[in-house]
């Protein structure tokens, strides 16, 4: 630290020096305090990993992993316990598939419409609506699915039960629309204007520019948004807990009660399950599976964008 000592100013006194030293000390202390809070996110991740895997390993010390992955019956809460994860996996996949069948086409259409066709004024109206739709709590969507959508579906589809995958899936799809729309719109917005202008210059119509130039150029981002939507659908809990039932059935029939992985965790949590019981450990085994599934999808989506992004100058 250079002290500028001119003959006219006073020499730095002891108290000045100690002031500066204490100021430096304070600066350093603050830096480390901030660093400590920043590492909390890493601690959280490890906390998740340890708490999940610890109980999961204990679970697999009692239940064989082969049974877990090959059996097609899931009855851990019954007298005769079977631990086949498949009914929960197929249920999760079924609901997620229905949700994506609703969310991806609509979300993508909205994204293309908003960025390529809509006037700024229309956009200013639609975007807040999407934000509100995204902000509705999932428990409200669950209520909506059970008390409104299911009765309507029962009018049209014979054999529709009160709890079913279809109603939960459709409503979950509507819930995910804003996410697909906003992520796809970001990807489409990143396509350089020159590409559009080039196509217009060749005499292309709006439709041709949108579908044959812009969408292919933004494809990596669009695919990533679909994968992230899938991850969201797999992890969604309240809609399926309320509207899809709590019957772990090994079926792909969207009309009957099923139980997704998340709904199972909720079902067990609602009862006061004692720590260190096998039931307690099942939710961690299911949770671990859920965590790694969604984690893989999120990583894949981010990797995909980076790997297949079209680079334009």
């Amino acid at each position, binding site marked *: 630290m250079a002290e500028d000592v001119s003959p006219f100013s006073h020499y730095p006194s002891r108290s000045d020096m100690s002031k500066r030293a204490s100021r430096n000390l304070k600066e350093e202390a603050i830096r480390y305090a901030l660093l400590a*809070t920043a590492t909390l996110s890493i601690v959280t991740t490890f906390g998740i990993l340890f708490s999940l895997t610890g109980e999961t390993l204990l679970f697999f010390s009692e239940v064989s992993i082969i049974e877990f992955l090959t059996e097609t019956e899931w009855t851990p809460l019954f007298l005769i316990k079977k631990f086949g994860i498949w009914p929960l996996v197929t249920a999760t996949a079924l609901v997620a598939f229905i949700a994506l069948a609703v969310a991806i086409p609509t979300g993508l259409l909205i994204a293309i419409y908003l960025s390529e066709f809509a006037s700024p004024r229309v956009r200013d109206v639609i975007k807040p609506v999407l934000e509100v739709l995204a902000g509705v709590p999932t*428990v409200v969507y669950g209520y909506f699915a059970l008390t409104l959508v299911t009765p309507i579906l029962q009018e049209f589809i014979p054999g529709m039960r009160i709890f079913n995958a279809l109603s939960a899936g459709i409503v979950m799809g509507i819930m995910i629309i804003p996410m697909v729309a906003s992520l796809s719109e970001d990807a489409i917005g990143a396509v350089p204007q020159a590409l559009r202008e080039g196509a217009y210059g060749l005499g292309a119509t709006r439709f041709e520019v949108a579908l044959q130039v812009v969408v292919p150029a933004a494809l990596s981002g669009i695919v990533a948004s679909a994968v992230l939507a899938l991850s969201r659908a797999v992890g969604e809990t309240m809609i399926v807990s309320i509207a899809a039932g709590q019957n772990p059935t090994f079926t792909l029939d969207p009309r009957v009660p099923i139980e997704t992985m998340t709904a199972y965790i909720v079902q067990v949590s609602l009862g006061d399950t004692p720590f260190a019981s096998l039931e307690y450990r099942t939710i961690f085994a299911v949770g671990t599976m859920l965590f790694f599934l*969604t984690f893989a999808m999120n990583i894949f989506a981010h990797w995909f964008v980076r790997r297949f992004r079209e680079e334009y100058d």
Partner: protein
Amino acid sequence: MAEDSSALDRGAPVFKASMQWRRLKSHFFVVLGLLSVLLGIVTLLVLLADVIIQSTGWLDWQFFTSFDSRFPERAGIKAALFGTLYMMVFTMLMAVPLGVMTAIYLEEYAGDNWFTQFIQVNIANLAGVPSIVYGLLGLQVFVRWMEMGRSVLAGSCTMALLILPIIIVASREAIRAVPPSMREASFAVGASKWETVRHHVLPYALPGMLTGAILAAARAIGETAPLITIGALTFVPFLPEHPLDRFTVLPIQIFNWVSRAQSEFHDLAAAGIIVLLVVLIALNSVAIYLRQRLRTRY
């Protein structure tokens, strides 16, 4: 334009020269786009209309001042309202300082190295973890290992971790929006790093941070799954008086009523949903107002 395209046709046989048809496709697409938007708007309106109709007659003063009950006409959301309030106070007290400090570190202090990268990737991944997994984390770490029990405090800690990524991302954006010239001016008159951050960066970033914090709060208030997982009660005929008391929150109360078979409880759920939505709309309005103010600042 369309007439001349016959010359091009030789090379591109698939190309339809009819301009009318090509324009029609654009119009058709606009209709499809509007229909998609309409699906969202109609859903929202139907949902609102439904909860308003269902809840008529249930949303009275008694509804706010009573505990839950086996009899729908005597049931209310007192415990849930106070539970949500208590939980949110603790959650925000933990999440906001931690989130803002992390954001300050990442934006103002962190060097461009692997460790910073690691933290950033990590935060991005945490934002994508399903909320129910946070519930399992809270159940194992806060409820069991730290022996907080299935309490307000355990719920708040879990919720704080859940919304931390949201607060960090919003705060970072707010800090980044502060022009570098502010910092340089502060350094030029001899201010230290922290003095610059404390007196010049933070005041300007405050509205943006506040907006992010409010949106995060809105998310936490509507979140149900992690609290069910840590074992928040669904039937609470008392007010929590201590951070280690058991509790319930508004979305859990709604879930409880939706899960019952009698349709009167579904009406109660609709009334609860109205209260929840009013709270969320109020919070979001404040956030939008702050965002607008921020926009006019610079």
